């Protein structure tokens, strides 16, 4: 009985839990509660994943109203895969969040953070699950509004301005998506994604459709921080409370990449996007520019969080690159990187959180000799960094391998050059910190680290989970690679007319 209602429970659970956090008030209690909810949510997503693997696409009519009248939740393999990533990251990050959050947010606002966190989770999960274009917009706004709130909740006053900037950008982006949805509705008369997809061939080559596509790409470009629409991202990531940056880096932007894939393949259709509108080249150029620009700016940064933020811009470029190849292999490579980048970036951000926890700074120049006092932590950062660079036997290598392979197979030589060159840039910006931390004599900040400070065990645990995941998925990538390949195969079977 409950099994058949799991899809709606997945979204409802955090939604109902969010206001309960406000009632709980007490910070430790609300943390416990929120973490519990996240883990429950993770379990639900595991069960759903299993169901999808066993029985194929699950369609759930919300409130019993069948589509096209009601809102449909639709789970295919991609949905289940994304749910798993998001819930996994959310649960494990939140588990370790308490110690760091207490440092960076004033204690009377703590329960509000957990509320916003759960709301954000609701939004993100809803975006993934829904099969209705307008519902998608609503969930996007739930996710975005709560993330503005989460960013602005910190003690650092710079986060306020960053949040405001993000709010302006984000609202414009969401509005563009809304316009696109409206135009799609105007030409097809439906909001259900499956129906839109089926009716679009009748209105191919109309200006309205082109306009809808353009509005959508720009809107999602802002939300997913695709170069050159990424301007809000560095500030938002570097000034917000560290846990928030971690969570956003691991989930939110990934979700918008998911929306991009979803709309390209199962709403607008391969034919419209790649054949008629030649979107492939536009996206490809943006991806390459983003990769190079992000990597280049990452090298210039002194703040670790900012460095990782710019690196995220670059890494988003990789995902986009895979998608823009417009082939099955490319899509699979993009998806593999969505997964791998989530574990890489979260591992790196978590190690930076612990560094900030001990030293109260994330400025590279002040952290000389850190490896002497915190060897284990630096090792974690090193592994995460190597994975980001794409050294063999780490998860990052697997992504690079498939991306390069997909580019080769399409004969895009230039892309291979871009990928390898940006890997070299990645070496530079990761090594900048490694060198300072390992081979310089300790600085006063590092010497002043208080050995008696309470160790954030849970935070360390979260970090190690992700670091081990980086190594594990580098050694045996069959899990995520097979899944990504299966998804890409399904997409090309179902949505692309050969």
């Amino acid at each position, binding site marked *: 009985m409950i099994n058949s209602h799991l899809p709606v429970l997945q979204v409802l659970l955090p939604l109902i839990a969010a206001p309960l956090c406000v009632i709980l008030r007490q910070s430790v209690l609300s943390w416990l509660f929120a973490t519990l909810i996240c883990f429950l949510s993770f379990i639900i997503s595991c069960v759903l994943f299993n169901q999808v693997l066993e029985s194929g696409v699950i369609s759930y009519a919300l409130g019993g109203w069948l589509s096209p009248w009601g809102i449909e939740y639709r789970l295919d393999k991609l949905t289940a895969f994304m749910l798993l990533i998001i819930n996994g990251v959310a649960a494990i990050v939140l588990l370790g969040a308490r110690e760091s959050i207490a440092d960076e947010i004033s204690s009377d606002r703590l329960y509000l953070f957990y509320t916003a966190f759960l709301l954000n989770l609701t939004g993100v999960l809803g975006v993934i699950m829904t099969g209705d274009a307008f519902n998608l917009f609503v969930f996007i706004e739930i996710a975005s509004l709560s993330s503005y709130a989460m960013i602005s909740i910190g003690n650092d006053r710079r986060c306020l*301005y960053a949040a405001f900037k993000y709010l302006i950008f984000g609202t414009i982006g969401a509005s563009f998506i809304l316009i696109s949805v409206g135009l799609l509705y105007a030409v097809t008369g439906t909001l259900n994604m499956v129906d839109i997809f089926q009716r679009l061939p009748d209105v191919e080559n109309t200006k309205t459709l082109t306009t809808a596509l353009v509005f959508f790409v720009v809107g999602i470009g802002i939300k997913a921080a695709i170069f050159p629409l990424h301007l809000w991202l560095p500030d938002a990531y570097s000034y917000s409370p560290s846990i928030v940056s971690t969570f956003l880096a691991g989930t939110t932007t990934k979700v918008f990449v998911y929306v991009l894939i979803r709309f390209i393949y199962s709403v607008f259709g391969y034919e419209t996007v790649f054949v008629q509108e030649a979107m492939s080249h536009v996206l490809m150029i943006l991806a390459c520019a983003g990769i190079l620009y992000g990597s280049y700016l990452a090298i210039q940064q002194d703040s670790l969080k900012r460095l990782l933020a710019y690196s995220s811009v670059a890494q988003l470029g990789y995902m986009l690159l895979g998608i823009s190849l417009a082939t099955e292999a490319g899509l699979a490579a993009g998806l593999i990187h969505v997964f791998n980048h989530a574990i890489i970036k979260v591992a790196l951000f978590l190690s930076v959180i612990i560094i900030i926890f001990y030293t109260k700074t994330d400025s590279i120049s002040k952290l000389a000799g850190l490896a002497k006092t915190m060897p284990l932590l630096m090792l974690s950062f090193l592994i995460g960094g190597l994975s980001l660079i794409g050294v063999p036997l780490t998860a990052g290598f697997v992504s690079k391998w498939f991306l390069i392979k997909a580019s080769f197979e399409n004969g895009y030589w230039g892309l291979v050059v871009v990928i390898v060159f940006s890997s070299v840039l990645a070496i530079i910006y990761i090594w900048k910190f490694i060198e300072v931390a390992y081979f310089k004599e300790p600085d006063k900040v590092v010497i002043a680290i208080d050995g008696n400070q309470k160790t954030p065990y849970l935070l360390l645990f979260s970090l190690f989970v992700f670091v081990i995941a980086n190594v594990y998925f580098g050694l045996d990538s069959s899990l995520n690679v097979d899944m990504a390949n299966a998804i890409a195969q399904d997409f090309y079977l179902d949505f692309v007319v050969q």
Partner: protein
Amino acid sequence: MDFLGLFNYWVVVILMMVGLYIVIAHKNLVKKLIGINIFQTSIFILFISMGKVTGGTAPILSEANPVYSSPLPHVLILTAIVVGISTTALGLAIVIRIYHAYGTVEDDEIQRELSD
């Protein structure tokens, strides 16, 4: 005729541009929020206009007039208005906190404060 037939859409485009211009050009954060609001309003009009059928009435089941305007855009826009209001509310809340933290709501003055 064509121009007048598309009158609603011209209004939408003009409002949208006005809204975007305010967001970009004005330094005052509250004015930026107002700009965003105008921008969103234009989208609401876009949706409502799409639902209008010439000669259509409200969708009440009766035998007299079988032509209805589509009610769905109205419903959607009700939701979108709620979203818009939440955005504005949150935006204003952040502006208030910015005012407390920086003592100003002017973009350039905040920038100056930040670079100090």
